[in-house]
């Protein structure tokens, strides 16, 4: 542990830096000596363990509208102060501010090799964007509890700066970074599983070691009045892509989807398509893509008048080890495009 206090640089937005409200959100970055605005709570939480040598202030819109450039400028100002630790925020529920804090912490740690910490509420979009790269303290939503929340950031920041072991995200109060840590436990998995079962049978509370994602209930859309006048779209999570995979859809844990035109085509030529899915043997669907995307049959039904219209675009992604969050986002984005195009219903083929 260091004997001398740490040099700490704080980052705050125009509001918490007391420049002003939305009317100053376009303000570029500036440095003030010492602790300014909410950084004073950080100084109070640090007590004798550290000194806030400077506060960097920047407007939310200035950062949000040119993230890479603005973060570069802010990081340069931070670097000039030679910090041992950077504390950004807390940002509570403020989205632009949270994204700025996450991006700055990531840039400071990667570019300067200086530990950085921020804090925000679980619903802040900065959490999902940056929790894997930086330590984000879990805060509430109320800025009126600034000193309490600043203490969380500082406790986490001091541990990072001193290279102390942090403990699990739940213990140390930060958002899980998606890392797996090995731990030695007293009882084997079989014993723990039997204990859990006995607890369950006895009606005692049971806590799973593997938290399962919660699937939201989606109310079923009403039935189509008739498909003869409906516009039907084909969507798949089976990994079909045009040769060369122009959208760079990942072979597993996809974050992207592709939209591929089929207007005027009666069939999918196997010579023009590939399949990047790494979760099943794609030999057969590469031989004949209709085994995954039934364009031949829906065209036939369209020509016979059994379907009103086949939508001119097929959407495709890879559904293997794909996170629930990315699946939901991609589904929402695809649905928005389909809705804007007047599509009535979707046949989604899955492997």
């Amino acid at each position: 542990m260091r004997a001398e206090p740490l040099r700490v640089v704080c980052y705050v937005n125009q509001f918490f830096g007391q420049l002003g409200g939305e009317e100053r959100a376009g303000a570029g970055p500036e440095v003030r000596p010492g602790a300014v605005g909410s950084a004073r709570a950080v100084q109070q939480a640090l007590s004798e363990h550290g000194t806030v040598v400077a506060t960097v202030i920047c407007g939310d819109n200035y950062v949000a509208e040119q993230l890479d450039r603005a973060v570069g400028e802010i990081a340069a100002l931070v670097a000039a102060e030679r910090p041992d630790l950077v504390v950004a925020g807390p940002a509570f529920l403020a989205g632009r501010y949270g994204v700025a804090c996450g991006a700055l912490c990531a840039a400071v740690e990667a570019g300067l090799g200086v530990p950085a910490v921020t804090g925000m509420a679980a619903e802040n979009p900065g959490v999902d964007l940056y929790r894997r790269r930086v330590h984000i303290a879990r805060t509430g939503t109320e800025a009126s509890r600034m000193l309490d929340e600043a203490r969380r950031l500082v406790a986490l920041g001091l541990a990072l700066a001193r290279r102390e072991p942090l403990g699990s995200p739940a213990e140390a109060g930060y958002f899980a970074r998606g890392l797996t840590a090995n731990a030695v436990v007293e009882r084997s998995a079989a014993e723990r599983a039997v204990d859990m079962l006995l607890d369950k049978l006895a009606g005692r509370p049971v806590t799973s070691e593997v938290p399962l994602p919660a699937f939201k209930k989606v109310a079923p859309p009403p039935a189509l009045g008739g498909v003869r006048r409906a516009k039907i779209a084909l969507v798949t999570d089976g990994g079909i892509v045009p040769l060369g995979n122009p959208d760079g859809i990942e072979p597993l844990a996809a974050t992207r989807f592709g939209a591929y035109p089929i207007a005027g085509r009666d069939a999918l030529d196997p010579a023009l398509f590939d399949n990047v899915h790494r979760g099943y043997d794609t030999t057969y669907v590469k031989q004949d893509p209709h085994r995954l995307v039934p364009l031949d049959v829906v065209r036939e039904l369209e020509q016979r008048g059994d379907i009103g219209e086949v939508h001119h675009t097929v959407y495709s992604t890879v559904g293997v080890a794909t996170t629930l969050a990315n699946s939901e986002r991609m589904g929402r984005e695809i649905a928005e495009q389909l809705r804007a195009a007047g599509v009535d219903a979707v046949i989604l083929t899955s492997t």
Partner: protein
Amino acid sequence: MTPVAVMVGANRIVPAAGIIHPLGGADLSPDEERALRRRIVERALQALQTEVVGPTVFTGESPAAPPGGAPAS
């Protein structure tokens, strides 16, 4: 994979021909394969025209299985 589809809450589910070729069959003749594909698509169109109250598996036997109904494969 229909149990998974039920678990995650897909509302209209049609069992298909298998993971490696959901709408085909490598052992079938081209005509048989296309007929199979057509049956599955037609069942999907039927499902789209059927009211459901929750995840429903459309097996061949009945137009609408009860919510959370048994998978066919």
